[in-house]
């Protein structure tokens, strides 16, 4: 079965960095509406730094690559989203330390640690209108795909679909955390900026496995 290896993981972070640049204004606007408007800035800066740091990082252990990404992100984008994602990446790195590649089950294991890291640091729960609301559905879809023994591409596609649906559902939620919480009921009808980032992560992952680069 196909595996995501070091080159693939690096390609993923590169694609994610490009995606953030392409969607910078969208993130800025979403965060300006119910936050402080810096998300476009922090995400492009943060993942730009990650992608750059990984370019010269000759490591084949996917765990170490994830940890490196987390540490770089923590320093480059110490915002709420940056720190949450960094914590998630550090945990994910721990969870898959020593591996040379991740099959669908490995990806699910990694995503689980990633999401748990974010939960632990942020103390939010699904329904609170945060990044968890796109990532949890993605994680569950990925688990389901494993049970159904789908292919890597189909599994990640299912996760991405779930993330997009979860993201859409944030419009019905009221923000409970961070700067958005001050906006209270006024966050109704608006898509959560952090959950949008969660969906982008799945989107970049899907593009990576579809491309097939770095898949062994």
């Amino acid at each position: 079965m196909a595996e995501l290896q070091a080159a693939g993981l690096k390609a993923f972070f590169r694609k994610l960095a490009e995606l953030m640049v392409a969607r910078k204004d969208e993130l800025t606007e979403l965060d300006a509406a119910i936050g402080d408007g810096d998300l476009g800035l922090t995400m492009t800066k943060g993942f730009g730094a990650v992608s750059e740091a990984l370019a010269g990082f000759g490591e084949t252990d996917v765990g170490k690559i994830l940890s490196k990404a987390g540490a770089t992100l923590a320093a480059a984008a110490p915002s709420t989203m940056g720190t949450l994602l960094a914590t998630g990446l550090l945990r994910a790195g721990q969870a898959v330390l020593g591996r040379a590649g991740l099959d669908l089950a490995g990806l699910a294991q990694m995503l689980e640690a990633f999401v748990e890291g974010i939960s632990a640091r942020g103390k939010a729960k699904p329904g609170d209108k945060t990044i968890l609301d796109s990532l949890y559905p993605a994680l569950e879809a990925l688990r389901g795909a494993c049970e159904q023994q789908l292919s890597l591409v189909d599994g990640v596609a299912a996760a991405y679909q779930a993330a997009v649906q979860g993201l859409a559902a944030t419009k019905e939620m009221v923000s409970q955390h961070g700067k958005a919480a001050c906006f209270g009921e006024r966050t109704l009808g608006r898509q959560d900026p952090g959950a949008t980032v969660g969906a982008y992560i799945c989107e970049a992952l899907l593009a990576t496995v579809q491309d097939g680069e770095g898949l062994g």
Partner: protein
Amino acid sequence: MRKLINRPEDFVDEMLQGIYAAHPDKVTYVNNDLRCYVRKHIKPGKVGLATGGGSGHLPLFLGYVGEGMLDGCSVGGVFQSPSAEQMLAVTKAIDGGSGVLYIYGNYTGDIMNFDLAAELAAVEGITVETVIGCDDVASAPKGREDKRRGVAGIFYLYKVAGAAAEAGADLAEVKRLALKARDNVRTMGVALSPCVIPEIGKPTFELADGEMEIGMGIHGEPGVQGKAKLATADEIVDQMLAAILADLPFTRGDEVSVLINGLGATPKEELYLLYRRVHQVLSAEGIAVSYPYLGEFATSMEMAGASISLLRLDDELKSLLAKPAHTPFFVQHQL
């Protein structure tokens, strides 16, 4: 954008270069990182006091690093938290062997990073305690103080804890006093114009000429009632004070310190005009004012507007507040 800057992305570091150039005898940086800002001379044995937060609020946060106040500050990008790594570097640099107290504002990004830094400091054998400023009455109802934003009132936490630490109090005692200040301070703000983050280049929210928003936070977070037609200074003070007084509550016979804080573009003339009304209302309520502070203590760059903070005093807080302080941004003789 009406700003005296070079490249927007250099804004924070060039500002820091200016500060280090202007005050080389008072402050410096560690870890080879301009954003790890510390006092030049660390007193061995003294409890270390650290803060940190986004840039764009001068004199908040780094401006309170100096004699009689804080020892170090990690400096973030505009309106962005500094990193846990930077906080850790500052923590290590200012630890005089008696532990370090973190005092910072109640913002998710900062909390996450300071928590991470505290975990890492513990690994290095440094005891860290934390007190989070949450004085903004407008940001969450009474009973949910833990959800409230930290704004200008944090000045009092710095001043009180700083004076205690300078006098040799231990970590538990400094923390107790910072908590006491935190529990006794309340703030309300009003904004009259937006501000512009240099790297964004346009306001992230609109406030037209002739509009105001009471309760707006220092990053443009919304207030309780949304935008309204600009009222007179007296009406605005009455509305803000009513919310503050009811919240603690402050009552007849109390003694308070008042802090009238300009958000950036508001002239001192207007701050004194606000104080005039505050003084009238408090006198009528039978509340005595000692040690009023007026000026810019926590800004949002060029935002127009102001905030009013009240600290309820007792003998202990009063005597700590009266102690001298001397930083590049704040000088006070013994009161």
